[in-house]
């Protein structure tokens, strides 16, 4: 099959970008979307043009490195029958002759580095603000010291599957990083190990989230819709609940 791509090209963070049209021929329906971009890049390289820069690594949907907006939806969710990362979206989801728009995540806290590559360091800084349990290596009690009920363990797990790809921010009309933040809050809030720092953690993480310049959540739900790992939307409510509780708690700062 053949497709027409309209790809965002931007030389670096400070330059202006624009959409550039390319034809990609002999695309196999079994190719992943990124393999199709590889094909385009091989072609551009042979012609002596600069290939399109895009982030990717594991190509099996778990590292969270890849992510572009395809036809207006993060990871091409609008074209995929199931929640997906960009690397697991396959060309059989498109028709022969399709015109496909490809853009980077767009959000103030995710500045474009080049073409489709953005800087998601803000996510790391949110984790640095408190997305952990303070336990030094060697200081752990026996793993069976605390039992965790199945329901809470499962809920913690559902939230912990976040891969930090940033699709939630890319899809959010407010550019809010709330689903990402809420996933970590909920993961640790459900476990006994997360309790001592629970109140402090949420205050610090929210403060960092806001200072990074992410927007606020208005409960629209685009984030959970495009999330490749289906982080439950209700984690955000868990975050809100803990945040309210932290305002009335002496544990917090």
């Amino acid at each position: 099959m053949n497709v027409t791509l309209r790809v965002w090209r931007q030389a670096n963070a400070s330059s202006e970008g624009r959409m550039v049209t390319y034809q990609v021929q002999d695309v196999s329906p079994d190719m992943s979307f990124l393999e199709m971009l590889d094909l385009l890049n091989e072609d551009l390289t042979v012609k002596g043009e600069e290939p399109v820069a895009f982030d990717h690594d594991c190509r099996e949907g778990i590292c969270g490195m890849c992510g572009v907006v395809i036809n207006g939806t993060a990871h091409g969710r609008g074209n995929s029958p199931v929640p997906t990362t960009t690397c697991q979206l396959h060309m059989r989801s498109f028709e022969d002759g399709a015109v496909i728009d490809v853009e980077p995540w767009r959000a103030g806290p995710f500045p474009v580095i080049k073409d489709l590559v953005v800087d998601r360091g803000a996510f790391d800084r949110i984790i640095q603000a408190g997305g952990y349990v303070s336990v030094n290596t060697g200081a752990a009690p026996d793993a069976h010291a605390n039992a965790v009920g199945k329901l809470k363990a499962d809920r913690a797990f559902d939230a912990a599957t976040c891969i930090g790809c940033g699709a939630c921010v890319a899809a959010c009309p407010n550019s809010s990083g709330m689903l990402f933040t809420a996933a970590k809050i909920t993961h640790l809030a459900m476990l006994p190990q997360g309790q001592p720092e629970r109140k402090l953690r949420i205050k610090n993480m929210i403060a960092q989230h806001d200072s990074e310049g992410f927007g606020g959540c208005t409960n629209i739900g685009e984030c959970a819709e495009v999330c490749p790992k289906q982080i439950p939307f209700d984690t955000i409510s868990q975050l809100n609940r803990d945040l309210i509780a932290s305002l009335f708690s002496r544990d917090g700062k």
Partner: protein
Amino acid sequence: MTTTTKTARQKAEKTDAGADYFVVGEEIADAKAPAGPIEQKWAKRKFEAKLVNPANRRKLTVIIVGTGLAGGAAAASLGEAGYNVLNFCYQDSPRRAHSIAAQGGINAAKNYRNDNDSTFRLFYDTVKGGDYRARETNVYRLAEVSANIIDQCVAQGVPFAREYGGLLDNRSFGGVQVQRTFYARGQTGQQLLIGAYQALERQVAAGTVKMYARHEMLELIVVDGRARGIVTRDMVTGAIESHYADAVVLATGGYGNVFFLSTNAMGCNVTATWRAHRKGAYFGNPCYTQIHPTCIPVHGETQSKLTLMSESLRNDGRIWVPKRAEDCDKDPRQIAEADRDYYLERIYPAFGNLVPRDIASRQAKNMCDEGRGVGPAVKEFDHEGNERMVRRGVYLDFADAIGRLGKDGVAARYGNLFDMYAQITGENPYETPMRIYPAVHYTMGGLWVDYDLSSNIPGLYVTGEANFSDHGANRLGASALMQGLADGYFVLPNTINDYLAGAPFEKIDDTHPAAAEALASVKGRIEALLSVNGTRTVDSFHKELGHIMWEYCGMERTEEGLKTAIAKIDELREEFWRDVKVTGVNEDFNQTLERAGRVADFFELGRLMCVDALHRRESCGGHFRAESQTEDGEALRHDDEFLYVGAWEFTGTGEKPVLHKEPLEYNFIELKQRSYK
């Protein structure tokens, strides 16, 4: 069964094979493991190691390259201890390291199941799984600290699978008879890595670790025989920078991408360890690669990577190919039972579809080589370099299982794997048999290290998959995660102090001749890559190298094939430096340049792998030499000749490497030849 004596013919080959390719040097030994009973060695070593006063630690800098389980855990732990840590990764965030992709689980000798498990049994299973090519002392320690890993991870909030009573669940994994594997659905690697990542970010916030994401290590700085720093390229700006430290730790993972197609992430590469090797670090057992039998097959030439499916699928799926090559393009459901060859059940009636990974892999290749593979035909090159189209896939059929358990029963066990298969291939595995094919998965080889995880360059430590230490010639399932975290959390932080106690060392900066030389060589190399301006893309070279490696240094290796491969690699490498096309400039985000540098190093590594495979005229673990097999076609070890670690010293590109043998001593476990008939 005990070791078979070798034939006169094999003896005759011994003298000439390899003489053209390498030189044998002095034997080496691990000098750090203390004497005494094996269960006391680690405690003894920890007691004997010199300590660094907590107040002095912040004056000492440690560079750690890599943020996976081995690197991230080490960075967090050394940060907690108070050292000044500089941590580097090529990804945009430390959370993306490829440890994240491990599915199955992590072993630990907790004996929570009261099923005769113990430290000694985990030690025994790991040594046996490694086909008796691992160092006993290291493996025993790995088993010893395994229980602490689970405690540590649970305390960090890693959501391991639990039972209704709230306690941790265990399963049996990789063919062992005890239930010692802890898991987190099919995402154990991800959850463990996020645990280490959180601990790491805590130290970044505390200021003990400085994180350099999107930085790739391109050179090791060695001053007066000590590892003192690295040269990196900032992958966003292209800035070439030197970083100095009192010790350097490489935790940069495996080199499976030398095969181009593997289950590794696209960015996984050998550059960091290869650069260290070029600076004098020995490379141990480079030919030991693990090939996993149940991956999703190649769909065509544009395939960029392979995806693994848990081998638990073989518990209920039956593997077959058509008996006749002309049936291969038929709809498998139309092929009558009598026309199917359930070859594993036929050849190995006792183990059937559950034979070990390497046997299942090799037989799948044999079937496809016979022309009985299924699925799309993929372009390949035969031994003469002629293009040919070969179907690379065998069926993994669940029709019986669905008949026995019902569709729901199968879905309950394998639903997520079936969904993954359907998403990637667009086929419904409940209706048509899955197609599988082996893929390179893990590399047991790596930089040589002693009991302290120190390479032969003082101050250079190597942890995780990047070193060669614990898995011998083959790795047991669910042991990779265990090793990475054992090294990072518990081993390195208790051994590196012995070296750092001698620090601080002479202060160095960019003006030091060794540092200036390293920086200049990196710049020169980048310039060289950019100035070739040829006609072929980096990927096309990488793919061709991958073909050569897969064909001659993959599942089955022969003397003739390996020699052919070495010649082909030399030729291709020469062509690469003459005709590669690298677009753009250094001072930019330039992914083509990144890949070009990595592929250049893969050529040199690939050659060394072939030399190592050529010299090891025995079959062991993941290394199968066609010349060394029993009458039944089984792998045959030669413990009398090859009971050693092959540690290679670099002497120059195109020069013969020097082989240093580290003899392996088995004082606590008896050597046995395996049999699966």
